[in-house]
């Protein structure tokens, strides 16, 4: 033990004889270890963000959504999910706990002179829990609202802000088309969730207005006519989405197959798409593993480069200190004493680099925020073109990356130190003593 301690002290002393050389070598390992921790943290951050988005769809849910088919596939007969589909699903599949019919249309909302274009969502009371909407004020829609087809609405946070920037919206009325709806509730802001039906665009809930779906059917019907200067578009569809909740996570995948078959039987056009968040979660898990593996590989390369730096320096040191080796051998040092001295020296280099690297890695979160802020200032255009996920990613320190990085840095020191040390030990003491 004492021998090791002395050897370590001796090696620190020798390394301090060449401060610049030693610190440059340390820098190589520092960068390697730092990049291991950073890249793992970034991978974890991106993976977690993606998983959170998917998980916010609900792992027990299956989402079936209307997709507008290409125009040559349909004429005037309408398309998409129907009320009949909805009824068939809930009556024939026993593993489905709940099914929510949803219809979404683009609308202009007005409160006197204020207006905005947003999404009118016809839905049922369970919609709030299934899509995890939180109430800020008032209440959400109820079963009675649906049964009585009441003219009520609930505003998303942003919608409320647009129409009622200064007053309390509860009890006020908003105008949608020719109809008036009384505001009974306002929601808290909600983060966008992952895209549905294979699209990568996240679903945004910020400009929504929710009304009972029964009211929507009675007042709006199934026909959508969009007229804009130069275009006239007519859409006929009954439901835009059915969100189904399966009774048990185990049954999700099997149920999804049954649902697909059930709906396909009645649809000749490809006018619906299915999203199974659980499937996406599993995919995301695989993607994340690959991502971490890939980033780890890059980090490993930089560590190897750092290790080669150590080896290079140690080889130079051995040549330079041939005489010292000869003296030590003449004074009774065994080969393994020489090996130990040089291996310890390279391990000290790599461990110091590793410790600084860990320090740099632990502060990756504030550092990355600072770097991103600086990039925004310097290249705002480029930053805004980046995908959302990359722009907002928060690195999450992976707890095992710190001991891993440390172990790797010790390993690099040993692996890349052994060869130069062996060379040193193999020197003939007589030759080494004669060396100038």
């Amino acid at each position: 033990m004492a021998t090791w301690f002395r050897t370590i002290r001796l090696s620190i002393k020798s390394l301090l004889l060449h401060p610049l050389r030693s610190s440059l070598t340390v820098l190589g390992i520092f960068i390697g270890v730092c990049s291991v921790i950073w890249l793992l943290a970034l991978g974890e951050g991106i993976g977690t963000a993606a998983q959170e988005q998917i998980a916010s769809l609900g792992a027990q849910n299956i989402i079936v959504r209307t997709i507008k088919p290409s125009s040559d596939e349909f004429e005037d007969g309408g398309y998409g999910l129907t009320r009949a589909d909805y009824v068939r699903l809930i009556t024939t599949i026993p593993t489905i706990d709940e099914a929510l019919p949803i219809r979404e249309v683009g609308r202009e909302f007005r409160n006197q002179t204020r207006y905005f274009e947003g999404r009118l969502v016809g839905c049922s009371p369970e919609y709030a829990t299934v899509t995890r909407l939180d109430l800020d004020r008032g209440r959400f829609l109820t079963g009675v609202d649906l049964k009585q087809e009441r003219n009520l609405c609930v505003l998303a946070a942003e919608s409320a802000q647009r129409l009622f920037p200064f007053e309390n919206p509860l009890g006020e009325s908003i105008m949608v088309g020719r109809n008036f709806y009384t505001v009974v509730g306002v929601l808290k802001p909600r983060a966008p969730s992952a895209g549905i039906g294979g699209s990568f665009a996240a679903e945004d809930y910020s400009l929504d207005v929710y009304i009972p779906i029964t009211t929507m059917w009675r007042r709006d019907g199934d026909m959508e006519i969009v007229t804009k200067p130069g275009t006239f578009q007519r859409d006929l569809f009954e439901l835009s989405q059915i969100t189904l909740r399966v009774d048990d996570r185990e049954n999700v995948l099997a149920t999804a197959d049954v649902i697909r078959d059930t709906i396909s039987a009645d649809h000749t056009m490809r006018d619906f798409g299915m999203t199974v968040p659980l499937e996406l979660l599993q995919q995301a898990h695989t993607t994340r593993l690959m991502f971490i593996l890939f980033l780890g590989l890059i980090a490993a390369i930089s560590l190897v480069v750092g290790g080669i730096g150590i080896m290079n320096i140690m080889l130079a040191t051995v040549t330079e200190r041939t005489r010292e080796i000869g003296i030590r051998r003449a004074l009774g040092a065994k080969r393994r004493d020489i090996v130990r001295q040089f291996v310890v020296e390279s391990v000290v280099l790599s461990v110091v680099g590793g410790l600084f690297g860990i320090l740099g890695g632990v502060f990756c979160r504030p550092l990355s925020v600072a770097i991103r802020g600086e990039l925004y200032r310097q290249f705002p255009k480029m930053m805004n073109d980046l995908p959302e996920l990359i722009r907002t990613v928060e690195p999450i320190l992976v707890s095992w990356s710190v001991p891993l990085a440390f172990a790797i840095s010790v390993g690099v020191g040993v692996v890349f130190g052994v060869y130069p040390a062996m060379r040193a030990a193999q020197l003939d003491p007589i030759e080494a003593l004669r060396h100038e």
Partner: protein
Amino acid sequence: MRKEYSLGGETVHAIQGISFEVPVGDYISIMGPSGSGKSTLLNILGCLDRPTSGSYLLSGDDVRQMSDDQLAETRATRIGFVFQSYNLLPALSVVENIEVPLYYSGKISAARRTRCLELAEMVGLSDRLAHRPAQLSGGQQQRVAIARSLVNDPRFILADEPTGNLDSTTTGEILDLMQQLNSEGRTIIVVTHESEVAERTKRSIVLRDGKIMDDKRHM
């Protein structure tokens, strides 16, 4: 004892059959022109090298049969080296230089540390303990080297031209020191080509072309 080298495809017979005995407590000088095999003999005597044939018995142990580790151990515990060019480690202070052999004999302890200080005092350097070798004169450096050679208390001291780089005054001082060590009972072998050094020893062996030319005892 013989030693052969293979040098550039030719076999060099550096030592061509010599035989001598060194009784404990003797003080011997080995002389000879360059190329006479002095250095080779010294390397073998110092257990840095092994004879090609014949045997070298060090207190009855055959050095030719020793492994590399055993040689190193023998160097560490039974032999003290003094070199012409001092061979101190430039990065270490005087005390640390004296301590180095202790690392390799495994005898390092507080008592041994005290002995380092005593040795430094004996060679007259107790006021320069923290100096680096480069800050010392040649004579002082050689005295550090002598102190270093004594730290493991070897019975046998080998000196390779210990005064080769020194002026006559310091040479005298170093020779006095070696004589003192010999009078304490240590066996000393000095390789030199200065006859004034040889005259201070008890016995001179002269080598030429790898053979013993002359072996005479002084009074």
